[in-house]
């Protein structure tokens, strides 16, 4: 068992092996780092959310126990009047983002996309929505309605 010839694999010197490792690591880290920068380039600049008071028409225009859909620049909102109190919920379905519709005869909100059904208070009655409709703060000043919503004014980069 002595004086066996060394296997062919060990023909490389330690120096050559180290050179290969450094070359391999360097290439991987370098190209990987660049790829990461490219991903960063693609990731959008997300501006901080700022709540703003959005004017939403006259309080007298909403009939008692009635619902009105208003299209605000910041998004669609359902204004409701119950027991003379004004409330606002987002009109965006919590399932996959379509705009719900008010069905006065059934007193329900129904989403046309995947048939999510909500009651007057925005709670889920049936269908796939995971959460109730988002409640929004609403203020009335001098008969004018203001809804507190995240601003979309800043332009997307």
């Amino acid at each position: 068992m002595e004086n066996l010839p060394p296997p062919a694999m060990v023909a490389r010197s330690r120096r050559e092996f180290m050179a290969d490792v450094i070359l391999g690591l360097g290439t991987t880290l370098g190209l990987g780092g660049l790829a990461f920068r490219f991903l960063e380039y693609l990731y959008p600049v997300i501006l901080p959310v700022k709540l703003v008071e959005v004017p939403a028409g006259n309080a007298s225009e909403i009939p008692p126990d009635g619902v009105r859909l208003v299209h605000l620049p910041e998004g669609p909102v359902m204004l409701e009047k119950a027991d003379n109190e004004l409330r606002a919920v987002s009109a965006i379905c919590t399932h996959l983002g379509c705009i719900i519709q008010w069905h006065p005869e059934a007193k329900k909100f129904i989403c046309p996309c995947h048939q999510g059904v909500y009651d007057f208070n925005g709670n889920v009655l049936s269908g796939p929505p995971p959460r109730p409709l988002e409640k929004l703060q609403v203020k009335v000043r001098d008969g004018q309605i203001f809804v507190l919503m995240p601003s979309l004014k800043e332009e997307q980069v």
Partner: protein
Amino acid sequence: MSRASRWIEERVPVDPEVLRKPLREPLPVHMKTWIFCLGGTPMMLFCVLVVTGILLTFYYVPYPTQAYASVSNITFKVRMGWLVRGLHQGAAQLMIVTVLLHMIRVFFTRAYRKPRELNWVLGVALFMITLTFAFTGYSLIYDQLSYWATVVGTNMIEALPLIGKPLLYMLRGGPNVNPNTLSRFYDFHIGVLPTMMVLLIGAHLALVRLHSVAPLPGDPRRETYPFFPDHMLREAIVGLLILIGLVNYVMFFPPTIGALATPGNTPGHIRPEWYFFPTYRWLKMTSLSIGIGGSIVYVTGLFLWPFIDATLERIAPRRNLWLIVGTAFFLMTIVFMVWEAIVG
């Protein structure tokens, strides 16, 4: 040898025999039926889509305020625009049909089994790319269906665990659907996806050739016939018939355009194109997490099918579990699709 061909051979030193060899590839005789031409048809349709797609980019503008008008111009004002857009739309629909038929053929002949599992995986990847092409394609028109499909489709991504939100922002180019979204979808549609498609089609074909065509279970014949000219001719006939059919279809049913996208109003009756009906039906039936989770399981199962088949075979040899499980999923998909088509 003519002077011209000698001139070329001196400058491009390739042995013509090397080029001819892949053309003469021997194919098993069971392929001499029309059903085995299905794999070539999506590739021919892809060529139609590349040509018509490049033509469409000459007039299309990927910006929300101009996209709809530019598609409308292509459809109604540009000379032969209706033909180019109609062919693009028709070829896209047919491509999905032929990819599905090809998959069904491969499935029921069990051609995906060892050692060809990876080519099935590549094939499913090509199918997914085809669907993403279709989805980004109809998003570009910027009519009501485009806009709401984009909203719903991207929101589905948000429901993914952990990576959902960053991936959503990445795809939309912002937290909401905005002008960046349209540029990104356009970029995917004309840049990223075509590149992936060409690379994967290349790998798919290379693997078919390296393994040679899968034997047909239960067919004892060992005779072969050459790819060129026999099989090529058959593929060419299918391709020409499809093209004739497509041009005639577009002449009788020229493309139209839906109502302009209005981000403030989701129309009452809205649903995706037919190939998304099964997913759409499933999403309506289940909660959001089961809806998304179920879809992920389904797609993963499709990718891993050859390995699932092998496992089923090990558990109960000769019971044909693959046929039972596969047919059950196949029928479920068809039932969901037809259900959605009828009930709406």
